[in-house]
């Protein structure tokens, strides 16, 4: 694989994001695989922000450790990012704004380009971003005209003049660099011929929204929260085209209870949120479990606890997803490994919620949710379509009036057919109190026990395409283990370790509840040491594995919780401590 890292940094409000978007989409359309990561802060203007784009000639699922081209709008950008610079990297800065200094030793090219001055000549200082793209094109020996279509798309609405001056800014940036500097960095060759059938540019949040729609969701109630709001944005645009609605709730408690209400009426419904909102939903999670009402919650995790780091990534809501709410309920927790699985598992969540009549939590995170990337296809053909056990109108009418037993505790698999409001003679009460078959609250001990047992039986014969995957050498003695969004990076780490001669495999969870016991046991066959890599402080996944499967003596933690996403060199370094090295020299 050939790849290359590009980063632009400055203050929030300087147009960093739109520049990154334009560059990423342009590369994507040229046929490259791109992966983006936005580093930003919880404020509107000021503060350091940067946008990293990794471009490659094959599928990538991580933004990469290295930066080959850094566009620095200020010294802070250099101070914050210089350690990622690859040997021979080019750093572009505007000498009129500041005199760039490298805080440490690196073999890189510091290139002063009067970005603002060139932009002014092209039509306005605001276009220094476009000048940067032109400079980038020159560094990579790319034709600046390749950016024409994206600029047309982006600025076409503002008129031909705006398009022309932006194009001019790109050209002038290109020309300036060509005339003044010699350092060039080769771009990988685009290996994919862009075609309308495949090759999509999508974020995990967009994929989750799309998945919801494909899975039958026609009602979203949500409260704005970083990093989950984009799911809401996407569905606000799409829902009305498919007979669905999005309600902006007054808070997350309202949002989740609305999702329960809509599901009770028979509409597949969900809420999307992040940690603080998810915490507010815990009581309602219990209501969905107790009343056996389908419910889907997408939790795009961010750094906690409490408000935590609102704009930084983490995988620390796993415990809450698995164990949150008082009392005991069953729930399904899906942890998509890729954006394709964000689509597929969010779609399937609706079928699973109806099939098992319980809450389904889709656990993604800021890193996957907000990073846009190139994928080949959406697995639309694999989406489940299951409306669960429903009692028909005819069956209800054949019953004596009032004889429908919604919570029939005698059903073998624990899942009793439900009726929907509007169905004649299907009356029942859905409730959070312990109840008898028709939904009347009762306190008789034997009924309580029978109903509790009924609910717990529901996942005994659970089946779903999610679970545990194994990559690499099947019976390798060493294993990298993870869940959710770290899949791509751990795959890169496995390949790197394998290249160094280590007998290694990569075990990854795309579902943690119900715990894929048998598949995990099979995956662990032959393992002498397993490094469980996760973005939290306490090793939540490792603890789940210990609890559900054992392996106490051979599990090692690889933990990160400083707010930054995981990097390849960090995994390799920890692997070097855990696995018998020497093979890595």
């Amino acid at each position, binding site marked *: 694989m050939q790849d290359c890292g590009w980063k632009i940094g400055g203050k929030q409000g300087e147009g960093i994001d739109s520049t990154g978007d334009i560059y990423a989409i342009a590369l994507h*359309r040229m046929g490259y695989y791109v992966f983006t990561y936005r580093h930003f802060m919880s404020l509107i203007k000021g503060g350091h922000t940067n946008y990293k784009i990794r471009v490659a000639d094959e599928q990538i699922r991580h933004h990469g450790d290295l930066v080959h081209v850094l566009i620095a709008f200020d010294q802070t950008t250099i101070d914050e990012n210089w350690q990622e610079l690859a040997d021979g990297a080019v750093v572009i800065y505007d000498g009129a704004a500041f005199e760039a200094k490298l805080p440490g030793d690196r073999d890189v090219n510091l290139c002063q380009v009067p970005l603002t001055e060139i932009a002014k000549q092209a039509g306005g200082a605001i276009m220094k971003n476009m000048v940067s793209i032109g400079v980038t094109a020159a560094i990579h020996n790319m034709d600046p005209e390749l950016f024409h279509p994206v600029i047309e798309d982006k600025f076409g609405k503002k008129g031909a003049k705006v398009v022309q001056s932006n194009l001019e800014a790109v050209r002038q940036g290109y020309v300036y660099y060509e005339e003044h500097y010699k350092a060039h960095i080769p771009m990988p060759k685009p290996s994919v011929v*862009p075609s309308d059938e495949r*090759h*999509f*540019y999508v974020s995990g949040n*967009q994929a989750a929204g*799309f998945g919801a*729609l*494909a*899975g*039958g969701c*026609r*009602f979203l*109630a949500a409260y704005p929260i970083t990093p989950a709001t984009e799911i809401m944005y996407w569905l606000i645009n799409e*829902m*009305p085209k*498919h*007979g*669905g*609605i999005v*309600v902006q*709730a*007054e808070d997350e*408690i*309202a949002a989740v*209870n*609305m999702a*329960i*209400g*809509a599901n*009770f*009426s*028979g*509409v*597949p*419904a969900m809420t999307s949120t992040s940690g603080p909102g998810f915490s507010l939903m815990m*009581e*309602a999670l219990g*209501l969905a479990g107790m*009343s056996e009402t389908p419910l889907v919650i997408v939790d795009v995790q961010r750094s906690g606890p409490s408000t935590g780091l609102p704009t930084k990534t983490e995988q620390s809501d796993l415990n809450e997803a698995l164990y949150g709410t008082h009392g005991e309920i069953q729930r399904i927790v899906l942890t998509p490994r890729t954006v394709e699985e964000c689509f597929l598992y969010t779609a399937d969540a609706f079928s699973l919620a109806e099939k098992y009549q319980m809450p389904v939590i889709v656990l993604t995170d800021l890193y996957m949710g907000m990073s846009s990337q190139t994928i080949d296809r*959406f697995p*639309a053909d694999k989406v489940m*379509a299951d*409306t669960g056990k429903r009692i028909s109108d005819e069956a209800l009418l054949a019953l004596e009036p009032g004889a429908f037993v919604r919570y029939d505790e005698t059903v073998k698999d624990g899942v009793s057919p439900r009726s*929907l*409001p*509007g169905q*004649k*003679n*299907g*009356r*029942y*009460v*859905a*409730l*959070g*109190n312990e109840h008898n078959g028709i*939904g*009347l*609250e009762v306190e008789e001990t034997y009924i309580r026990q029978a109903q509790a047992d009924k609910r717990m039986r529901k996942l005994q014969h659970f089946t779903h395409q999610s679970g545990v995957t194994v990559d690499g050498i099947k019976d390798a003695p060493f294993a990298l283990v993870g869940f959710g969004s770290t899949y791509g990076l751990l795959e890169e780490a496995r390949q790197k370790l394998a290249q160094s001669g280590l007998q290694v495999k990569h075990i990854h969870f795309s579902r943690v509840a119900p715990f894929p016991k048998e598949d995990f046991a099979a995956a662990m066959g032959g393992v002498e040491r397993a490094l469980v890599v996760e973005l939290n402080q306490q090793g939540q996944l490792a603890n789940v594995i210990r609890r559900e499967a054992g392996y106490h003596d051979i599990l090692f933690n690889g933990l990160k919780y400083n707010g930054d996403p995981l990097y390849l060199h960090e995994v390799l370094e920890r692997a070097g401590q855990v696995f018998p090295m020497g093979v890595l020299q």
Partner: protein
Amino acid sequence: MSTMKDFKAEKPTWCPGCGDFGVLNAMQRAAVSLGLEPENVAVISGIGCSGKMSQHFGGYGLHSLHGRSLPTAQAVKLANKNLTVMAAGGDGDGFGIGMGHFIHAMRRNVDITYIVMDNHIYGLTTGQASPTSDIGSTTKTSPHGTVEKPIEPLQLALSERCGFIAQGFSGDTKHLATLIEKAIRHRGFSFVNVFSPCVTFNKVNTYEFYKTGLVNLDEDEGYNNADRFEAMRRVSEANNLVVGVVYEDPAQTAYEDTVYGYPSESLVSMERGLKQEEYDRILAAFH
């Protein structure tokens, strides 16, 4: 045609003489009078004595969480607008833990009816001060008398421009039934506050207390319930002790009639999944 029997469910477990019996009866009468069928009515309740309403009323029921009847009920209705949806709760449920949702439900204006059984006390937890307890009320949690000013539900609803506001008394179920019937007929969010005495824990706000002190605005020919400021003044003058339709603004449009994209049928009748051409259109946007 449905009858009272169709709206009866399990025998209520309220204390003998509880005001909530009258509320249940009035809800059933209103449903019969409107010609509703039980399968097309859903009662969504919160927690407390009032929360048992969903189990005692013979329609579909959702006995939700403490304070959360309103968000739940709004979604039940939005999902299937052919249902008649009533949310039921008490003063603790609705004006304590659930107060935020009340304000927002009025703002949102989904076509549901909210009935509050206001007894100025927490009953099911055996007698603690509630948000509508009068200043000086002595209860288990206020042995020296409450000092907080009580919530004034009608004034609150008036200030929020709730499209239909009424107050009733569970000792007069016939009148209360007419109020609930009007509330259900109103298209948009409607609010009926009901003085529903707790015979066990509130020895002040009793049936006797309300039988003598209430001003019936429905019987006042000079009262114009389309005038919000007049309503505020009259409610204030009577120290909230009014019954009848306090305010109605039929011109307000319900959320589901206004919000962009709500289909002409209900959400529940929409097809699931996506057709190939819908996939293709969405996919094209990701290129």
